[in-house]
């Protein structure tokens, strides 16, 4: 007996990462096998499984040393003739994103306890599959594997929006699919071409491979469009408010919290470090788009009438900050951007959870339908105010740390862009304060609201852990930064390879030049 346990323990410790990724998938299969009548059992099991995943992700995060190299690597031969392997590994940045995803998955399941009443079994199967694929995206090193996970996220999300969403949800789901599929097609072509050119699908190999300047420009375009849809970058963003607002609470939480991070992570891990020529070439465009995103997102959020759409547009604004941090090519800004992805996931996830709680009580998302609700539901008001403050960058709460690092770093390398983006700080305060004023303050607009119940134990259980993290990261961001600094530094030195030699853009390079590799850049060497 002992030996069996030992064997399991040793396998688990050697394959910790795979265990964390595939536990939700395994749980999904088991959930599907549970008779659909016993809803309580399904919910409890799914919750237990996601909690176990969360625990595994926490262990993974604790084990990652933050050296800047991939850790906890696992490599298994898969399709040797194509150079495709099952290869996963994490560094501080991806481990943190995994931890956040697992936390939001758990929160989503808890939040759906009462909200989801139809086809309970299918819902939980889909949520668990989505969680598995999201975790996979953040851990995959083999790019074909990455693409498989990337696409696998789409399917469950589509059905979650389409089946359990409200209002015009099937249209929103289709819009979501069209946008992301269009991006995915380009992404797939890019991956296949790059794999063919490099003779491998291993990201580490790709980083060593010298793509020609022409290849870089084209490949970057293919990758970047796929990622830009997910971020989303302004212009490719209109799927987001629809999908977020029509989706059920768990769907919105995963969409805003984890799915948008796939785009940001794609830029951080793949598109920018791989193609420095393109980075130098396109930087002004992406910086402009990022700043437009910050401001336009905030302005759009300001005039929304639907609470969930307001939060959705605030995501566009915040992800604009993240893109600014990445494209500033500065260590602090990049670290701020990675931390910002995590912070945005936590805060916006929580805001969507609260919007879901309000919807559960009042069956409306319209801001105008509320008023004076701080009187009838004081603790919900406290929770919403707290998360809004975090989201508007109140120092001492988590988003401030990332916003500060992003703007500080970007100001040093891209002064004008950062200076314009700072106005976002004012606009963010404006739209959140006005939303709070309209929803929770003023005279009580609906007498029947007096009978509404305030936060319940389950809802506290969802929000309190997130609130605790919001405060912890805000008060001492260093605890998180120490694990993401090295990866961010590596990201910057890889993405900046061209700039180091030809600071003023690449006009002097002809498209057929090899990428100039500076001598001693710490590419992940193994």
């Amino acid at each position, binding site marked *: 007996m002992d030996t069996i346990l030992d064997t399991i323990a040793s396998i688990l410790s050697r394959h910790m990462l795979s265990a964390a990724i595939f536990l939700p998938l395994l749980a999904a299969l088991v959930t599907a096998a549970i008779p659909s009548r016993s809803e309580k059992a399904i919910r409890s099991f799914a919750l237990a499984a996601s909690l176990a995943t969360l625990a595994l992700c926490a262990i993974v995060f604790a084990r990652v040393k933050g050296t800047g190299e991939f850790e906890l690597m696992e490599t298994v031969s898969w399709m040797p003739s194509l150079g495709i392997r099952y290869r996963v590994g994490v560094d501080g940045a991806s481990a943190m994103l995994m931890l956040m995803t697992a936390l939001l998955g758990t929160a989503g399941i808890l939040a759906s306890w009462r909200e989801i009443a139809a086809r309970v079994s299918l819902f939980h199967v889909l949520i668990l599959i989505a969680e598995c694929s999201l975790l996979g995206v953040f851990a995959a090193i083999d790019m074909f594997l990455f693409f498989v996970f990337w696409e696998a996220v789409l399917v469950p999300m589509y059905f979650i929006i389409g089946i359990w969403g409200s209002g015009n949800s099937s249209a929103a789901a289709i819009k979501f699919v069209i946008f992301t599929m269009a991006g995915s097609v380009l992404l797939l072509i890019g991956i296949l071409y790059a794999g063919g050119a490099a003779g491998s699908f291993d990201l580490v190999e790709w980083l060593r491979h010298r793509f020609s300047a022409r290849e870089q420009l084209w490949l970057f375009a293919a990758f970047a469009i796929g990622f830009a849809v997910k971020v989303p970058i302004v212009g490719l963003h*209109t799927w987001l408010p629809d999908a977020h607002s029509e989706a059920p609470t768990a769907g919105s939480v995963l969409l805003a919290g984890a799915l948008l991070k796939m785009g940001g992570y794609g830029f951080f891990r793949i598109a920018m470090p791989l193609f420095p020529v393109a980075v130098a070439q396109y930087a002004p465009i992406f910086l402009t788009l990022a700043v437009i995103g910050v401001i336009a997102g905030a302005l759009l959020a300001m005039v929304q009438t639907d609470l969930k759409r307001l939060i959705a547009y605030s995501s566009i604004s915040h992800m604009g900050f993240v893109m600014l941090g990445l494209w500033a090519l500065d260590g602090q800004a990049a670290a701020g951007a990675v931390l910002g992805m995590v912070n945005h996931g936590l805060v916006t996830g929580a805001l969507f959870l609260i919007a879901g709680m309000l919807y559960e009580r009042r069956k409306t998302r319209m801001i105008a339908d509320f008023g004076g609700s701080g009187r009838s539901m004081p603790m919900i008001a406290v929770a919403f105010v707290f998360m809004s403050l975090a989201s508007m960058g109140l120092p001492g709460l988590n988003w401030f740390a990332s916003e500060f690092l992003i703007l500080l770093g970007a100001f040093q390398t891209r002064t004008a862009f950062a200076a314009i983006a700072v106005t976002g700080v004012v606009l963010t305060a404006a739209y959140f304060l006005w939303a709070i004023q309209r929803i929770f303050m003023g005279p009580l607009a609906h007498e029947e609201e007096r009978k509404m119940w305030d936060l319940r134990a389950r809802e506290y259980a969802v929000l309190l852990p997130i609130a605790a993290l919001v405060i912890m990261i805000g008060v001492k961001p260093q605890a998180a930064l120490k694990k993401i600094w090295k990866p961010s530094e590596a990201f910057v030195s890889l993405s900046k390879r061209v700039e180091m030699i030809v600071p003023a853009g690449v006009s002097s390079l002809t498209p057929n030049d090899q990428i100039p590799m500076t001598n001693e850049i710490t590419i992940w060497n193994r």
Partner: protein
Amino acid sequence: MLDLIYQHITLQGLIWLVPTLPLCGAAGIGLIAMFCARSEGAKFRNFASFAGCLMPALSFAACVVLFFTLTGFEATEPSAITGPLFRWAALPTLFVDVGLKVDQLSLVMALMVSGVGLLVHIYSVGYMWHDEGYLRYFALLNLFLFFMLLLVLADNLVVMFVGWEGVSLCSWLLISFWFEDAAKARAGAKAFIVNRIGDAGFLLGMFLIYGAMSAAGAPAESGYFNFESMQRYGIYFVPVATAISLLLFAGAIGKSAQIPLYVWLPDAMAGPTPVSALIHAATMVTAGVYMVVRLNFIFVLSPIALETIAVIGAATAIFAAILGLAETDLKKILAYSTISQIGYMFLAVGVGAFTVAIFHLVTHAFFKSLLFLTAGSAITALSGEQDIRRMGGLKRRMPITAWSFVMGSAALAGIAPASGFFSKDAILWQAYERGHGALWAMGFLGAGLTAFYIFRAAGSVFFGESATSAERYKRAAEPPFSMVVPIMLLATLVAFAGILGVPLAFGGSNMLCTWLGGLIPSELSRAPSEGSRGVEIVLMAVTLLWSLHFSVLGWLIYAQKRDWPQRVARRVAPLARLVSKRFYVDEIYDRTIVRPLIWISRKILWQGIDDTVVDGIAVEGTARAAGLFGALASAAETGILQHYLLYFLIGAVLIVGFVTL
């Protein structure tokens, strides 16, 4: 007593206690407020009063002990740092420690903040006792004290910024304390947003400082935002000093309600009156002045920035005083007076007299919170009446309050020997002596206006005939003991705080300014000119007579002949209207900034670009054109998972096959 403390607490621990104690109070009371049903909350009122006042009291006591300890070491500067409690960030390029620093400046500020804070807390016990949100109120007031003390004790800009934003937060929550009133909710949000405009400038200033520090080659470990290392590398700020100073000053403009961002402060009077006394008169709004004095070594590098500060300060001083002349709401008169007095402080800062600005900051904190607390008593006595035209004669019903208000007014008007006389004259003298004749004239003019509007208020509220209903007037009475005591203590402070700065010309020692001067390099190098003492005394007498004249005038007219001013106002109707409508500044901001921004967002960005162009034409057009997508989508809409997976698989196989072949 001191021995006992020294045996058990280190100096560093004591410094940390100063802000932490109110935080504990806020957390404790706040948790009870949150997790108790509203009806049960009443049981904890006594606890809230006790803890809510005890924490500021202990905090004040800690400040006093610190003061005596640090001034006890002879021949050294009275300063101490705690060192980092922990590192907020420790990246190779950015070190931010969470640490506190005590020196003359922060000691003065901390003593003032915790002292006035304590008195306002005690006053609040009586003032708020019957309010439903009693616990919430005390939690927030304690939280405010925590942030304010963090702001003044911080040893680096980032920690200071935590306090800086934290006080905005508490200000918002306390202005909107009675949140069911839509107007009050709006006023709170307005205050926060306007403050944020300044904060954006403050952030940019910080980024520039970082750039200057890293260009100077300062070691990152010393902390680029640390005041001490900034001062050490101060000389490297020269090329960007003007930009840094102006950006930081933008933050101060927002926080300290100067032109053009003063509009939030009059609205902020929607909060409970003790809040107006503590936050919107004595402490938070003066944080901007404190910040500029704290960073004086940067500001002195830029004569342009100092000139700008002085001009904005002087202009605000006069402008707000004019608005105060026509205002009829008692609390708003005091609000405009606060704006105007902070203008004086910036005038002092701008001419380079940093210590004098702090002197006026301290005396202002005393007399303005006295004025607010007495005004609060008067308003409560008349069951919430704030319009000075419907008050009057209250002296006979509440003499202590009335004479305390007069004491505060005398200080504000600068009538000797009340403390305000010394500090305001010090400012005017510094402006004159340092060769800013025009600024002195503006300040002089403002002093007359100030004297007139405050004695107008005093005369209308406490003297003359009662203009309220006889029944109401009969019910008006002195507030309970717990509210009278803080008023009397403050009145005593107002009367005697002038001792802190009796000018050399009077044979005084100018204690506070000399003591603070040790901190400020630019003042250390200045030798007071000996020959001008005669001029100083003459100017002082002139200003005193000038203020006294307007005080008596204001008091006489509004206590005895209330119909005169109305007749005068009718004579110059358009002008009177313009002033009483506050020069339409709020309306102008609304029409030129707020509404266009909302219109652009709604009509152009949202309905124009997002809905029509991107969605309508680009997306749906593409979708319609791409029949394949349409087919795929409608097939998928059947809700059958297998179909979609099949499509995906077929696609994947096709492409993989294509690659391998």
